[in-house]
């Protein structure tokens, strides 16, 4: 590599790979176009929000969800990539708070809770939340009472996690749809409570 040549910006690198694959007769472009739509339209937190709302309103579903997350979300027509073999749903309670992370890369159950937001992939969150959980949550706007137990889950293998938030008071009698509308990605990661 010559020191003189400029580094290609990432967008040129991506375009170069697409062109190289095309030149081999591989229809990468069509696949990529379709896959981009999947990532934008299908991998959205509204999926997980439906799961949470159903669990809040259907005690039998909740049991199945906590026993085997992957099978339970399939009941709602939701699927996970093949290498995500296991979905573990972590139930918050008034005295217990769960939070998920991935210290080594940025793994998430993205087909259920949506692709991870930028801060989840940043070094700050990855480095600090396992060691300084209460401090980091506080800095992110979540003040937990001192007696609240914190459980951190580092996604170090291909088991995927999502947090089942506590159903907020004042939502009695709401429809599943209305309940789903208040469930956020942050709450399913565990950096917010509802």
């Amino acid at each position, binding site marked *: 590599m010559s020191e003189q040549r400029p580094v290609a910006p990432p967008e040129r690198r991506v375009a*170069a790979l697409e062109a*190289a*694959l095309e030149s081999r007769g591989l229809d990468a472009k069509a696949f990529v176009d379709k896959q981009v739509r999947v990532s934008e339209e299908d991998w959205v937190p509204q999926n997980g929000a439906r799961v949470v709302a159903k669990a809040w309103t259907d005690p039998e579903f909740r049991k199945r969800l906590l026993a085997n997350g992957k099978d339970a979300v399939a009941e709602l027509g939701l699927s996970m990539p093949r290498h995500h073999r296991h979905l573990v749903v972590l139930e918050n309670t008034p005295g217990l708070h769960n939070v998920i992370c991935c210290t080594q890369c940025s793994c998430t159950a993205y087909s259920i809770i949506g*692709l991870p937001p930028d801060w989840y992939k940043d070094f700050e969150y990855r480095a600090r939340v396992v060691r300084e959980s209460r401090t980091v949550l506080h800095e992110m706007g979540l003040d937990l009472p001192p007696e609240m137990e914190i459980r951190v889950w580092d996604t170090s293998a291909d088991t995927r996690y999502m947090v089942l938030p506590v159903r907020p008071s004042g939502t009695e009698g709401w429809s599943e749809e209305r309940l789903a509308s208040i469930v956020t990605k942050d709450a399913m990661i565990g950096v917010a409570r509802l």
Partner: protein
Amino acid sequence: MHDLGGKQGFGRVRHSRDAQVFHEDWEKRANALLAFAVKSGYLNMDEYRHAIERMEPRHYLAAGYYERAFTGLLTLLVEKGIVSREELERLAGGVIPLALPSARGRGNDPGRRRFVRGDRVRVKEEFVPGHIRMPAYIRGKAGIVVDISPAYPFPDAHAHGVHAEDEPTYAVEFRSQDLWPQGADAALVHVDVFESYLQRT
């Protein structure tokens, strides 16, 4: 450089309620190209994660998430001969930094044993040159098995084309005070640990 859990020196998380997943169009296409490569059988997820981990440390820390991810993808496609670096650099009109070469992998621990929920286990004090999914902060530490997964490919082998049996992972619960004595907020920290990384306490 990737093994960041518990590393000191980092500042505040730059959190916002409307944080985005993607910031530029090429990030979406980079992410989709990974799916293309997986679908085409060019690589597996352990090879992919390892390729990102092999990035030159200065590059790793300077790059954003999707540049890291795409560097891992390109590195593997070049190493496997799907595309050549020269062709990519010609098409891109510039230098494309790739990850550094791989070291050797390893197979399962033939002496590994099954654990059940409630077992007290200790993470072996191992240092390997290749891929491993044991975050450094649990090395040598003791915890309790709270959950068991289905069997997964063994990353230390799967990232290197080494043959190995699939292994379950154990969700091991550690006390943060055991992981970082006097240096952590109180919490229970759970890590999914492959069977070969564990021993009885």
